[in-house]
C-alpha cells in the first residue's frame, strides 16, 4: 500500500509532469503516429514484395494476419528501441547545458526521484503507442491467424523491455554524455537483437523480446537441425526475468549513484568548460570534457542515507558474484559437455579409439573455457578499477571496518583471479586425469600431435612425459602463476593510471584504462617478442643474445615457445626467469606507486566525504588533526607530499 502511494507520488515529480504535458500534446502524438504507421507499412510492403523469402523465414503456413501481428510486434519494439534513448539521454546533461542544474541540486530533490518521473512516463509513451496501434490490432483480428495469448504475452514483454531500456538509458546518462549514451544503448539493442534471433537451443540473449516474438520461427529452424526447442512459456519467462533483473539493477544503480566524492578538485559545482572547450565542442560535439562526476557528487548529497554494507555489496559484491558465476559456469558447462562426449549413456568411458577420434575436441573445450575465463578476468580489470574521483571515500563493510575503493577493488580482483586460476587449474587437471584414466597411459598422445610437433622439431610423442592435455593446454602451475602475475600487473597499472591521469576530465576512468592495458600489452608483450624475432633475422654482433634474452620477458614469447612456434630461436627450452624478474619488479613497483598515489590523493582531498549520511567518519571531526589544519598548513603538507612524490 505504501509502495503504491510512493509510486503515485512520483506522478507529481517534475520529470513526469513535463513528459505528460509533452507526450499528451498534439505534436508528439502526430509524429509518433506517423512514425509508427510508416514503420508498419514499410515492413508490410517489404514482406509482401518478397513472398519467397517470407516463406523461407516464417514458414509456409503463416497467414497474413499472423505475419501482420508479427511485424506489428517487431515494429513497436524497434520504435521503442529508438524513441526511448532519444527521449531520456539528456536527463542530467539537459539541465546542465541549459544552465539550471544547480537549481535542481539545490531544490533538495533526490536523484532517484528526479529520474523516477521520467522512468514512469515511459508508460505514457507506451500507452500512446498502443492506442495508436488499435486500428492495426483490429485489422489483425479481422484477418485472423494470430495466437492471441502469445500476442498479448509479447506485448507485455515489449512493455517490460521498454522500461528496461528506460532504466538502462537513465543509468548510462549519469556517466556519459547524450551521444555516447544513445550509441551505447542502440549498440546494445542491436547486439542483443541479433543474439536473440540466433537459433540456438539455450538462448542466452534474454534481454530482448525477439526470442519470444520469433519463437515459432526459431523453433522451426531448431527442429530442422535436430535440436530440441524451448517452449514459448520458458522463453517468455526467462526474457521477463532477465529484463526485470536488468531493470531492477539499473534502478538500484541510479539510487546508489556514481562512486564519486566531493573533494578539493571537484568541490565547485557548475564549472562547465575546460581550456579548449570551444574548439572541441565545435569540431566533435562529443563534450567528453564536461566535468560532471563532481556535479553528480553534489547532486548525490541529496540522496537518503545508505546504511550498512549494502552499498559495498551492490558495487563490489554483485559484480564479483556475476564474474565468478561466469568463470564457474564456463568450467561447469565445459566439464559437463566433456563428459557427455566422452562417456556412454551409462556413465562408462567410451573406448579408446573413439576417444582418439574425438581428441581434438578436448582441446576445443579447454580453449573455450580458458577464453571465457580470460575475457572475464580482463573485464574484471575494468569493473574493479575506479577513478581518482573516489579518493577520500571510505565505505562501510562492517560496523567498524571501512575500506577505500582501491582496497575493495584489489580484494575483488584478486579474489576473481584466484577463482579463475583455480577454476582453470581444477578443470584442466580433472580433464587431464580423466583423459589419463581413459587412455590408460600417461604418455598417450592423440594421433594429430606428432604432426604438430614435426614442424617444430619437437621430440617424438613417446618421449614426451606429460599428457596431451597438460602439454597443449598449458596446465602447469608455473605457467598459470605467470598468467596470474601478468593479469595482476595489468590491474595494478590500470588502477594506478586511473588515480594518476586526467584529474579534471570525466573520462579519466575509461581513458586511463584504455591507455594502460594496450600500453602494457604493446610494451611488455609485443615489443620484446618482436625484438627477438627481428634480431634473429638481422645479425648485429653482441645484440642477438641480448634480443634473445629480452624476448623472454614477454609472456607472449613464453606462450609461443610453449606452442613450439619459436623453436628456431629458443629450441625446446622455456626459461621464464627474465619474465619473473621483470614482472615481479613491475608488480611490486606498481603496488608501491599505487599506495603512494592513494596517500597523496588522500592528503590532497583532506575534506574527505562530504555527505552527512555516508561515511561520515571520514569528515574531519571537531578537534581532529585534519580540522585544525589551516590553509597554510595544508599547503605545506601538500608541498611535502608533492616533493616526496617527485
Amino acid at each position: 500500500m505504501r509502495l503504491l502511494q510512493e509510486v503515485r507520488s512520483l506522478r507529481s515529480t517534475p520529470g513526469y509532469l513535463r513528459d505528460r504535458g509533452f507526450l499528451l500534446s498534439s505534436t508528439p502524438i502526430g509524429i509518433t503516429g506517423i512514425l509508427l504507421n510508416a514503420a508498419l507499412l514499410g515492413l508490410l510492403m517489404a514482406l509482401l514484395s518478397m513472398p519467397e523469402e517470407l516463406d523461407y523465414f516464417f514458414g509456409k503456413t503463416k497467414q497474413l494476419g499472423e505475419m501482420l501481428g508479427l511485424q506489428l510486434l517487431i515494429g513497436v519494439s524497434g520504435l521503442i528501441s529508438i524513441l526511448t534513448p532519444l527521449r531520456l539521454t539528456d536527463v542530467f546533461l539537459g539541465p546542465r547545458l541549459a544552465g539550471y542544474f544547480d537549481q535542481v541540486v539545490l531544490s533538495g530533490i533526490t536523484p532517484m526521484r528526479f529520474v523516477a518521473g521520467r522512468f514512469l512516463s515511459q508508460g505514457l509513451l507506451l500507452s500512446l503507442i498502443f492506442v495508436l496501434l488499435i486500428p492495426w490490432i483490429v485489422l489483425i483480428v479481422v484477418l485472423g491467424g494470430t495466437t492471441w495469448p502469445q500476442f498479448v504475452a509479447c506485448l507485455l514483454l515489449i512493455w517490460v523491455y521498454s522500461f528496461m531500456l528506460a532504466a538502462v538509458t537513465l543509468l548510462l546518462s549519469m556517466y556519459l554524455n547524450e551521444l555516447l549514451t544513445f550509441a551505447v544503448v542502440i549498440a546494445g539493442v542491436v547486439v542483443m537483437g541479433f543474439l536473440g534471433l540466433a537459433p540456438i537451443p539455450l538462448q542466452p540473449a534474454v534481454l530482448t523480446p525477439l526470442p519470444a516474438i520469433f519463437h515459432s520461427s526459431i523453433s522451426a529452424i531448431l527442429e530442422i537441425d535436430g535440436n530440441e526447442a524451448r517452449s514459448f512459456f520458458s522463453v517468455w519467462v526467462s526474457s521477463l526475468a532477465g529484463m526485470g533483473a536488468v531493470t531492477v539493477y539499473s534502478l538500484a544503480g541510479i539510487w546508489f549513484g556514481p562512486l564519486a566524492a566531493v573533494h578539493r578538485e571537484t568541490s565547485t559545482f557548475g564549472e562547465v568548460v575546460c581550456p579548449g572547450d570551444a574548439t572541441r565542442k565545435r569540431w566533435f560535439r562529443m563534450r567528453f570534457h564536461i566535468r560532471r562526476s563532481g556535479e553528480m557528487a553534489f547532486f548525490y548529497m541529496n540522496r537518503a542515507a545508505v546504511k550498512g554494507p549494502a552499498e559495498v555489496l551492490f558495487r563490489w559484491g554483485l559484480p564479483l558474484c556475476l564474474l565468478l558465476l561466469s568463470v564457474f559456469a564456463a568450467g561447469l558447462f565445459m566439464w559437463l559437455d566433456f563428459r557427455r562426449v566422452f562417456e556412454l549413456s551409462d556413465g562408462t568411458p567410451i573406448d579408446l579409439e573413439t576417444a582418439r577420434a574425438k581428441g581434438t575436441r578436448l582441446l576445443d573445450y579447454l580453449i573455450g573455457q580458458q577464453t571465457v575465463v580470460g575475457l572475464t578476468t580482463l573485464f574484471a580489470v575494468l569493473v574493479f578499477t575506479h577513478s581518482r574521483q573516489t579518493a577520500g571515500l571510505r565505505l562501510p563493510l562492517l560496523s567498524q571496518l571501512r575500506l577505500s575503493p582501491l582496497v575493495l577493488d584489489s580484494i575483488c580482483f584478486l579474489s576473481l583471479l584466484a577463482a579463475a586460476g583455480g577454476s582453470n587449474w581444477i578443470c584442466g587437471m580433472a580433464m587431464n586425469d580423466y583423459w589419463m584414466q581413459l587412455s590408460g597411459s600417461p604418455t598417450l598422445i592423440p594421433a594429430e600431435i606428432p604432426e604438430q610437433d614435426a614442424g617444430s622439431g619437437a621430440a617424438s610423442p613417446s618421449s614426451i612425459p606429460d599428457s596431451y592435455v597438460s602439454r597443449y593446454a598449458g596446465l602447469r602451475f608455473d605457467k598459470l602463476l605467470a598468467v596470474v602475475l601478468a593479469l595482476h600487473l595489468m590491474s595494478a597499472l590500470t588502477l594506478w593510471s586511473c588515480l594518476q591521469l586526467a584529474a579534471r576530465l570525466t573520462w579519466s576512468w575509461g581513458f586511463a584504462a584504455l591507455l594502460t592495458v594496450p600500453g602494457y600489452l604493446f610494451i611488455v608483450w609485443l615489443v620484446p617478442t618482436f625484438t627477438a624475432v627481428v634480431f634473429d633475422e638481422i645479425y648485429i654482433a653482441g645484440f642477438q643474445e641480448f634480443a634473445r634474452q629480452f624476448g623472454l620477458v614477454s609472456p607472449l614469447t613464453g606462450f609461443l615457445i610453449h606452442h613450439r612456434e619459436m623453436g628456431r630461436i629458443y629450441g625446446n627450452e622455456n626459461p621464464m626467469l627474465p619474465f619473473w624478474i621483470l614482472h615481479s619488479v613491475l608488480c611490486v613497483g606498481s603496488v608501491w606507486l599505487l599506495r603512494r598515489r592513494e596517500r597523496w590523493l588522500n592528503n590532497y582531498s583532506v575534506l574527505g566525504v562530504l555527505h552527512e549520511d555516508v561515511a561520515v567518519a571520514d569528515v574531519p571531526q571537531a578537534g581532529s588533526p585534519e580540522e585544525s589544519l589551516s590553509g597554510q598548513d595544508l599547503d605545506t603538507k601538500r608541498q611535502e607530499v608533492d616533493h616526496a612524490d617527485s
Partner: protein
Amino acid sequence: MNAPVTAIQIQNVTRRFDELIAVDDVSLQVQAGTTLGLIGPNGAGKTSLLRMLATLSIPDTGDVLIQGLSVIRQPRLVRRLLGFMPAEFGYPRGLTIHEYLEYFGALYQVPAVELRRRIQDVKELTELTARDNVAVRGLSTGNRQRLLLARTLLHDPQILLLDEPASGLDPRARNELRGIIRTLASLGKTIVVSSHILPDLEEVSDSVAIMEAGRLVTHGSLEQLRHTSGETGIQTRIRVPVEFLEAAAVLLRAHSSVVSCEVRSPEVVVRAEEESGNELLRILISEQIPILEYAREALDLEDIFMQSTAGRVT
C-alpha cells in the same frame, strides 16, 4: 528582550582555485531577519562566497553554519532552508511562466494544492500575474529576474541568497526590485544580496560587508561604517572656481581638524572633525577664495566603499 539569532555564521572561510585565492579567511555573521549587502568590485569573491553559502562550493578551510547547520557536513539539510538566486538565468526549454514555476515547485516537492497558492502569491509579489502564459524564452531581462526571484521564493525559504539581482535592470525595474526585497525583509526573511549597484544596497541593507581581493575589508551597519570611515560620518563639499581648487585644497589640508581632503573637480570634499565647518569656511574666505557652494552631508555607501577599498582585484 530576545537576543538576536544568528542565521548565517561564516567562520574563517577560504576558497582557492589553484593559485587564485577567491575568498581569503572571511568571517562574518548575519542576524536572522536582517538584510546583508555584499559589496565588492569584480573578482572580489562575492559570488564565490555566496556559492559556498548555497552549498555549491565547499570551503577549503573554515566552515559556514546556516541556522547552525554546516554546509560541509549537512548540505542536504541546509538546502531546505535556502533560496539561491544565481546571477545566470537557466531554464528548461519550451515552458511558459506558469509551467516554469510548476516545474520548480514540483522539484521542491511542494504539495499540489499548496503549490497553486504559492505560485499565485509569488506571481503577485513579483508582478508576473498578467504574463502567465508567456514563454520564458521571450522574456525581457527584467522579467527574467522577476521570474528567477519568484522561483527562489516558491518553497518559502527562510534565507535568501541573491547574487546580483539588479544586474542588467533598468532604473524602474531596479526600483521595483528594491521594493520586493524590502517586502521580503518585512516578512522576516534573512537576505544576503550582492550587487555592484551601491545605492540599491544602501536602501535595502541593514548591514553591509565590503570585500576586496577575496578579503572582507569591513563589515557592519551603515551607521557603524560611517563612523568608522570618518569621525562624524559627515563630509563637507565645497565648490569653488576651478582655478582655486588646488589652493583651497592646500589650505584645508593644513588645518589640524581635517582628516582627509580630496579634489573632485569642481569641488573639494573634506572630512573633518565635528564642528569644524565654520572654521574651514573662515579660512577660505580669509584667503579670498570665492565659495560657490557649501554643503554638509552624511557619507553614502559609495563614499564608504571608495574609502575602504583600493581597487585591488584577485
